[in-house]
Structures are given as structure tokens and as C-alpha cells.
């Protein structure tokens, strides 16, 4: 008979305790709030799924969700191709390579709220370089007044801040391709486009998957930049999900609905990441299935 060693439980206990205090207990408090109506610290009423229902029917929330999805989608559509293009044009060796790497990485070192402040000033039509330049060119640009301008500014800000991350990931991926592939392609008479399509892009699959997931999750949780830039305005043109949530929880102190929505928010991210990950995995492993078929 096989002896069962129960000591393993003891060994994972530290991890269980750490995870419990850092993740499970806080999450359970949120679950706790989401099913109660807290009228005052002493008076609370169990309301079941009431908050979930009302939050799901909330027009503001649906608006924020649609804006959020559109924003994250735009971020991926702009940043991923731009990052690949940037990585392809970066020098591979010599002192140029080191210099360019440092330059590209600079924006990644700037904190979120500083990025917001930079662009808030940069985009002002009176004193900001960007805003004033556009104004001189006769373009009517005003991120505090126009919903479209505010939205574009937030997108531009995110592209400026995070495209270098995609570029660095792709750059690392490109450098990992053995020289023999390029030599073989040159012998096979492949054009530059064919080299990109049949060698570089397939070999970048792994890093691109990481880049897409990171940029998706991060942009889906964007908070600080639009908060600093416009506070979610004009109107609620740049009110994304986390800002909406903060308004509910901190601004209006509606702990119940905020908690219910936090859980929904969490599940949305989890679900979308799951779908994205599986889709990208399948794009890659379609190759392998063919081999065994």
C-alpha cells in the first residue's frame, strides 16, 4: 500500500497564509459587501444578488464598458504593429543599439500620474508645445472641451507611454532568431516582405502573445492618466471602468454596488484574457496539430 504523506500540507502552509492575507481575504470582503446593503456601520441588510442586477442595468456602466473595450482595442491595434515596426528598425549591434535601447525605454520609467501631467501641459493650447503647435496650424484641438480630442489624447498618451514595451519585447524576440534563418532566406531568394511574413512574424509569436496580454490587461485597467488629464471628462467621454468604479466606491460611497461591480470587472478581465490567450495559443499550435495529423 502506498503511504500518504500529509506533511506536504505543512510545507505549503506559508504560501496558503500569504495568499490568504494578500488576495483571498480582501476579495472575500468585496464579496461580502457585494451582497449586503450597508446603511451604517451598525446596520446592514442582506440583499442577495440585488446589487449585481442593478449594476448590470446601469446605463453609465454599460457606456463605460463599451468605451473601455473600444479603448483597449484601439490600444492593441495601434501599439502592436507600431511596436513591431519600431523593433524592426532598431539597430541590432554596436553602440547604436545600446543608445537606441536606452532612448526607447525612457518613457517606460515615467510614473503614470507624471505621464498624465506631462500630457496635460503638453496638450494645452496656450502654453503646451503640442497644443500650441496644433493651434498655430489652425487645427481646433481642445482636450478639455471636445470628447473626441480628449479620447485621442488619452490614446496618444498610452501609445507614447507603452509602445516601447511592445518594441522591446519584439526586439528581444528578433534578436533570438538564429542567423541561419536569414542566411537560408537569402539563399532561397526571399524578399524582405517574405522574410518578415515567414520568419520574423512566426518567430515573434511567443513575445507577441505576452505583449498583447500585458497591453490588454494594463489598458483595461487604465485609471491614472485620464484622471489626471481630464478627470474622466468632458462629460464622461474618458470615464473608463476603473474610474467609474472609483466614483461609485469613493465618491458616492456606494460600497454594495461598487463591490458587485468590482467582481464583475474582475470576471470580465479574466474572461477576455482567457479568450485572447486561447486564441493566440491556437494560432500557434495549429502548426503542431498538423504535424501529428
Amino acid at each position: 500500500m502506498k503511504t500518504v504523506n500529509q506533511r506536504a500540507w505543512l510545507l505549503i502552509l506559508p504560501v496558503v497564509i500569504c495568499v490568504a492575507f494578500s488576495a483571498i481575504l480582501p476579495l472575500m470582503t468585496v464579496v461580502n459587501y457585494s451582497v449586503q446593503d450597508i446603511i451604517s456601520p451598525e446596520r446592514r441588510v442582506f440583499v442577495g444578488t440585488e446589487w449585481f442586477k442593478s449594476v448590470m442595468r446601469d446605463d453609465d456602466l454599460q457606456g463605460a464598458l463599451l468605451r473601455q473595450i473600444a479603448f483597449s482595442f484601439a490600444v492593441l491595434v495601434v501599439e502592436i504593429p507600431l511596436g513591431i515596426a519600431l523593433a524592426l528598425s532598431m539597430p541590432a549591434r554596436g553602440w547604436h543599439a545600446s543608445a537606441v535601447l536606452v532612448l526607447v525605454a525612457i518613457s517606460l520609467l515615467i510614473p503614470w500620474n507624471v505621464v498624465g501631467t506631462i500630457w496635460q501641459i503638453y496638450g494645452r493650447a496656450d502654453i503646451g508645445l503640442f497644443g500650441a503647435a496644433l493651434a498655430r496650424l489652425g487645427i481646433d484641438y481642445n482636450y478639455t472641451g471636445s470628447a473626441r480630442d480628449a479620447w485621442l489624447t488619452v490614446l496618444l498618451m498610452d501609445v507614447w507611454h507603452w509602445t516601447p514595451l511592445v518594441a522591446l519585447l519584439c526586439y528581444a524576440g528578433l534578436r533570438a532568431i538564429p542567423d541561419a534563418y536569414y542566411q537560408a532566406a537569402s539563399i532561397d531568394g526571399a524578399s524582405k516582405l517574405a522574410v518578415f511574413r515567414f520568419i520574423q512574424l512566426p518567430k515573434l509569436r511567443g513575445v507577441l502573445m505576452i505583449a498583447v496580454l500585458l497591453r490588454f490587461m494594463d489598458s483595461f485597467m487604465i485609471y491614472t492618466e485620464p484622471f489626471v488629464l481630464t478627470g474622466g471628462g468632458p462629460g464622461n467621454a474618458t470615464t473608463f471602468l476603473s474610474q467609474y468604479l472609483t466614483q461609485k466606491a469613493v465618491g458616492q460611497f456606494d460600497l454594495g454596488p461598487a463591490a458587485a461591480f468590482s467582481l464583475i470587472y474582475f470576471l470580465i478581465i479574466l474572461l477576455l484574457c482567457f479568450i485572447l490567450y486561447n486564441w493566440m495559443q491556437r494560432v500557434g499550435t495549429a502548426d503542431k496539430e498538423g504535424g501529428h495529423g
Partner: protein
Amino acid sequence: MARIDLDLAHAYMANPKSDDDYALLPLAMSFADGGAYALLGPSGCGKTTLLNIVSGLVKPSRGTVKFDGVDVTARTPQQRNIAQVFQFPVIYDTMTVAENLAFPLRNRGVAPDRIARRVGQIAEMLELSGQLNMRAAGLAADAKQKISLGRGLVREDVSAVLFDEPLTVIDPHLKWQLRRKLKQIHQELKLTLIYVTHDQVEALTFAEQVVVMTRGRAVQTGSASELFDRPQHTFVGHFIGSPGMNFLPATTAGAGIDVAGRRLSLAGRGLADLGAVTLGVRPEYVTLAGESGEGAVPARVTQAQDIGTYWLLTTEVGGDGGGATSVVRARLGTRQAIPKAGETVWLTLVGAHTCFYKDDVLVAEARS
């Protein structure tokens, strides 16, 4: 198809000063149209550099590469119309096996029906027909390398096909099979093939002419038997053969030669005034002799190993009166009495196949 003439030198650094700075020392070499050649040498001897210069991936720092008398030094691999197969399989992950094989043709705008026919032929030859519609990425390493080989062979009009240790990743039993395939393909297609390897068996079985290289120098070009019987350089004697040639210091004296304290007769070989030379004899040609036999010296047996089809005898020669000892190995047939370790035997060193070297270069070989 083309005749290839090389007359060049190459250094990877900007201002080479000593010989050590050169990856390839000045050399002049020709590969005949339709020949099968092997570049053989240890790692770092410059054979891959030479191959990449022929294909155009590396531009020689000095000299020219000519195809059929036309200077192609400045041309790209594509313009030279070269095919090359690399040490590790290079396949296009997202394509099927058939698409991989068709890629070099498709890039050159060959008509689809001709591509299909040619891919079919090559797949047939390499036994890939059953896998043509599979994704190349999921296949085993040897199948991938077959695809690489196939891409190298798929174009009919190439100037030459170059192989850079293409069988490194292949299992030993498949190696034999693929090597035979390559030879067969060479006979069928009459392409110029240049094959780089550090494995002498591979080189000698594949190629009609083997170029032996060491330290950026091509020391001898010849057929398997020439390399075996008449090594032009001590390196060739040492590198070809298993084990390699035995070398002993010797001094010529009149009509004889002093080896390991004994004067042996040279019977009219004209080495009289060479002074100090190196005597080289293959273990296959070292035989047991009777005491004081002609051309024989006494040797102490240090080891006798049974290799299966033959015995390998390791002995020490010389050392009497404070002189240096030399190790002499002999391959002996299994049908004779094999001396044991510790015994003293007489070994014939000077015979029909003995070679003599001065400054590592062959000066004379024995003739019967």
C-alpha cells in the same frame, strides 16, 4: 552548374597582422563542374568560412571568387544562384512541407505546374512524399533537416549546392541513409556539391575529392586513398585514419636512417642529405617482425586492446640512453598471436608505405 575558382584570403578583423589573425590564409583552389567535394577539418579550421565565401554570405577580405571564369566576388547568394544547407534545420514554421520545398522556386517566379512537379520529385527522392501536406513545424529534427536538404536540391539550375555539416542533428542510422541518398542524388543530378564536415568517414564516403583544412590552410586535396596512403602534411596523416599516423623523429645517414637508436636501410630512396626528418607510418602498415628484422625496431607493449575486428597495440619505442620515447600504434589482425602488455616486440616501421616529412611537409614516400 559551374566550375568554381577561388584565389583569396579572409580575415574577420580589420587589419590582420600575423597568420593567426586570418580565418583563411591565402589559398587557390578549384572545384570542377559536377564534382562532389568535401571540406574536412577540425572546428575552427576555416571550412565554414570558405563555404560561406563560395555561397556569398561572406565577402573575402582579399582575392576573388570566380564561377565559370566570371568574377562573382561582389554578388549576393541569390545572384550567384547557390543553394546552401545549414548545420541546423531551417524551416518555415507556418508552411507545409510542400510549401517549404516550393519556397525557393516560388520566390523565383517558376510556373506552378513546374513547381509541383519538381517538389514531387524531390519529396520522392527524400522519402517525404507522405508528409507533403503536413505543417513542417511539428516534424522531428531529421525530417526537418530533410526539408532543408530538399530546399537545397529543389532548384535544377543552381551553380552548386553547399552543405554545412548537414547531418549533425541526425541519428547515426539515418545518417548513413541520408548520406547514401545524397550520393545517389549527386549521381542523378550531376550537381556540383561541396560538403563541409569534421567527420572523416562522412567526408571520405561522400566526396570524390576531399580538401583537408587546418588553421585556415588547405593542406591537401585528394581522393580517400591519396589522403590515406600519401598524406602531404603531417596534419593529414594525424587527422585521417583511426587511429592516425604514427610519427617518430629520425635522422637520415647515408643510405640509411636512424630511428629509435637503430640504423635502418632505406634502399635507394634519396633522403641522404636531409638530416633530421619525421618518419610517418600508418598503424595499418606496422607489422610484427622477427628480432632484428629488416626495417624493424624493438618496442615495449603498453596496451593491447581488442577492437572487435582488429587488435590495437600501443607501444613505446626508443628511450634507450636517455632519448625521448615515441608512441607507436599498430593495427593487428585477429588471426595472429597478440603480444601482452609489458612484452617487448619488434615492429616494422620502414616499409613500402612509410612516408618522410620535413617541417611537416612530405618529402618522400616509400615505394615498393
